[in-house]
């Protein structure tokens, strides 16, 4: 069973596919008409990968390093080609804005062609909060270069001395003094002008932005509110069949025997058995379900699966000593000896599910040995590689397209649905659409890892940290390092044998690492009798983190808050992926019923220069709401290799009535590069609420979710 659990994206240690045949410049140039083409060589875009993932960077270095391209057609239409995909984070809109800003054309004239492996340059995937800092910057450079080319063409055309008298506005180059203008598409006069630029092209500083930095409505909003937008699960091709896959009764079960007679007797049904894969394709959903039910399968199940109740012991037992890079400085024993107070505590986090409202879906079509798959994934090129491997064909014969997708949150990195649909389509010799049921999504996708964290710390009576030892079992290394100033630190991540398939999730392990750290910090503040805010600031030199902490506390009214029976306030902060966050929460606890209600949340967030303030607020608020679920109730329950709560009626996600008033403070640092914002705003929600519950009820909660069944069952 272990080989099934090896995830390419476990802990987001992404490895590039061994081979990827990026569309070459020549091929790409053949696909676009006359006009201005700008290709960006993206050495800067890879720097993060090179630092963190040596092998991936090495493999990629041999590939065509073009990372973005942009085309201005003779009709003045601007097309941007990018491997990023839209999953609700609204990167389509903010990248449009970034290009509009540099190019001086209205956003409405710009089209983003996204996530089509035959049309866009290679991209590792849409994850890790990199679209804004990397792709956004590259596209702005491409647009800035195109702007320079357009101005140069206009200078030649009008015989003026230089471009200083010219301006680009509303898709035209304007020469005001002479009272003339020309559309940007007309300038090339039927030629195709190709320009290649690299990383140092100048950019307009954020202080001078006029389009970027202001709110822009969602580019595809009108298609969404009218129901016109076709997600993968809405697609229909001529002659298309509907696919269904036979699932084992439990993880690791092997197919012992299969009788397909009944299913094959149904008109129009194709049954596929290929090794352990069994599936059907039929003209419509009902027939496909009937065929699936008519399959007679016997399974050999395996025993000794850990359950959600004993999984934490299992993770500790199977953990390896060294995973990732241990962080150490000073002498932890000396630090503990120097402390007035020593404290040890353990924390746990349940496995949770992403629950994207659109389940995994794929439409696959074979045509003369070439495979085309539409699917909702965050890694179109990764899925292309998976498909090529699965069918033993070269990547050049596989095209993956990603329609704007019904959310992902880190849950759609892999290509199993694409492979299943393609296998069925191959057998049926017709296009096949496969949409997972909610139960399949809850069972056969992957989960955010559960984990255990042990913390041992020392602090002096004046509140100064002297020692910090932190061990994370299984959940991951993201956000594991403390941002506080401690002279003696030991930090280690221990990979373990996970009983469930696990992978990426919004902010990865930063949520749990931050929960354990910020809960523990609260415990230490109580030990030395300090205010939690003052205690943190006392141990914190990082100015950006201090700034969000102080901004959140100020807006929240932290120091002015009046104690009331049954109520409490808590705060937490953290740094991850270039974003700085601090969250304050007020809760009300009814000790009689055990009911915990979050009354309000204030969050301060800073991610450098803000590109789309409205989109950013939307992301921050969405992350907070999602964080409420993982903080309070969400937990995947399992035993004997089965998921026990694979339905929305059994797995509680936040709804309207659960969401308190949320106040967001955005610190716009125009002097700093923009960082991504889809993930980090989630990481301080759970500890802020947990700390508030402690303040309200005197009960210290060290497990996520905090109150799946209310507070009553918790011993004070």
């Amino acid at each position, binding site marked *: 069973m272990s080989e099934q659990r090896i995830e390419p994206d476990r802990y987001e240690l992404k490895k590039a596919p061994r081979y990827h045949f990026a569309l070459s410049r020549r091929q790409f140039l053949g696909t676009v008409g006359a006009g201005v083409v700008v290709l960006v060589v993206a050495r800067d875009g890879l720097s993060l990968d090179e630092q963190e993932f040596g092998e991936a960077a090495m493999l990629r270095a041999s590939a065509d390093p073009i990372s973005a391209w942009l085309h201005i057609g003779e009709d003045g239409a601007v097309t941007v080609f990018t491997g990023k995909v839209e999953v609700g984070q609204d990167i389509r809109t903010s990248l449009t804005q970034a290009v509009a800003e540099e190019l001086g054309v209205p956003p409405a004239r710009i089209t983003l062609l996204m996530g089509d492996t035959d049309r866009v340059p290679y991209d590792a995937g849409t994850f890790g909060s990199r679209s804004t800092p990397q792709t956004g910057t590259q596209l702005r450079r491409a647009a800035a270069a195109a702007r320079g080319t357009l101005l140069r063409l206009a200078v030649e055309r009008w015989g003026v001395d230089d471009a200083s008298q010219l301006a680009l506005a509303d898709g035209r180059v304007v020469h005001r003094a002479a009272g003339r203008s020309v559309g940007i598409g007309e300038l090339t006069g039927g030629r195709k002008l190709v320009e290649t630029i690299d990383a140092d092209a100048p950019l307009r500083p954020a202080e001078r932005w006029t389009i970027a930095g202001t709110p822009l409505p969602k580019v595809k909003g009108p298609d969404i509110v009218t129901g016109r937008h076709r997600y993968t699960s*809405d697609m229909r091709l001529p002659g298309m069949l509907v696919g269904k896959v036979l699932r084992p009764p439990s993880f690791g079960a092997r197919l012992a025997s299969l009788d397909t007679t009944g299913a094959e007797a149904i008109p129009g049904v194709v049954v596929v058995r290929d090794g352990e894969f069994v599936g059907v394709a039929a003209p419509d959903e009902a027939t496909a379900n009937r065929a699936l039910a008519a399959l007679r399968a016997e399974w050999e199940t395996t025993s000794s699966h850990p359950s959600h109740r004993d999984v934490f012991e299992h993770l500790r037992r199977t953990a390896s000593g060294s995973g990732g890079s241990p962080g150490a400085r000073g002498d932890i024993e000396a630090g503990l000896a120097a402390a007035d107070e020593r404290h040890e505590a353990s924390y746990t986090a349940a496995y949770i599910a992403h629950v994207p*409202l659109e389940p995994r879906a794929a439409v696959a079509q074979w045509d003369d040995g070439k495979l085309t798959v539409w699917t909702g994934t965050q890694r179109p090129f990764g899925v292309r590689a998976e498909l090529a491997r699965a069918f033993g064909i070269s990547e050049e014969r596989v095209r993956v397209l990603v329609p704007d997708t019904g959310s992902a949150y880190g849950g759609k990195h892999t290509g199993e649905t694409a492979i299943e649909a393609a296998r069925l389509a191959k057998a049926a010799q017709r296009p096949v659409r496969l949409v997972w049921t909610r139960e399949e999504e809850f069972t056969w996708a992957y989960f955010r890892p559960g984990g255990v964290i042990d913390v041992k710390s020392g602090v002096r009576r004046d509140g100064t940290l002297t020692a910090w030892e932190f061990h994370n079992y299984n959940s991951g290394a993201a956000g594991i390092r403390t941002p506080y100033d401690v002279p003696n630190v030991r930090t280690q991540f221990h990979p373990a044998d996970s009983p469930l398939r696990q992978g990426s999730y919004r902010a990865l392990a930063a949520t749990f690492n931050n929960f354990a750290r910020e809960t523990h910090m609260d415990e230490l503040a109580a030990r030395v009798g300090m205010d939690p805010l003052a205690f943190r600031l006392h141990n914190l030199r990082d100015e950006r983190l201090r700034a969000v902490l102080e901004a959140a506390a100020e807006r929240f009214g932290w120091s002015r808050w009046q104690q009331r029976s049954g109520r409490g306030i808590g705060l937490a902060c953290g740094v991850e992926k270039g974003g700085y966050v601090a969250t304050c929460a007020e809760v009300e606890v009814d000790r009689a019923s055990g009911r915990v209600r979050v009354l309000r949340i204030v969050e301060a967030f800073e991610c450098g220069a803000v590109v789309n303030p409205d989109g950013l607020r939307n992301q921050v608020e969405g992350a907070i709401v999602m964080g409420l679920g993982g903080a309070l109730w969400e937990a995947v329950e399992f035993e004997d290799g089965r998921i026990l709560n694979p339905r929305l009626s059994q797995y509680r996600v936040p*709804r309207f009535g659960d969401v308190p008033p949320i106040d967001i403070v955005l610190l716009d640092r125009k002097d700093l590069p923009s960082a991504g914002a889809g993930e980090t705003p989630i990481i301080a929600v759970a500890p802020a609420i947990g700390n508030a519950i402690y303040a309200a009820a005197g009960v210290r909660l060290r497990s996520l979710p905090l109150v799946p069944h209310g507070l009553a069952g918790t011993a004070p």
Partner: protein
Amino acid sequence: MAPVLELRVNGRLHRVQADPAKSLLAVLREDLDLTGAKYGCGEGQCGACTVLVDGRAVRSCITPVGSIGARPVLTIEGLADGDALHPLQQAFLDEGAMQCGYCTPGMIMAALDLLGRAPAPAEDEVRRALEGNICRCGTYSRIVRAVLRAAGTATEAGNE
């Protein structure tokens, strides 16, 4: 052979050959190619499949098509009048009340049911009415604002 049913959807009469037990959602999506109503859970828990039947919101994923009879069905596709968006659709755009947008059609249809019964709802009423609709991206407060904004618009339009 499945019987032929007459179904009035978005003001048009459709003849559909379907098992009466087939879900309204499957008929809309498969037989009529109206894919605005979404599958989200198949058990009436998420609201992504919400459409109006005789003016009231129903979970089309758990509604047998045979139970509809002559009652009119309204889906998100039937809401706009040509290029003119319904005030609710416009309000969702104005408030930026979406991220991935997968829940949006169901949200708008559930809100339409509410505004049909309570043209000027209080904020709490909006929250309660939409409690059965999940926005996993967490845009709840924007959706509430959008519905309130549309209610304001609708009221003004009605007074003129």
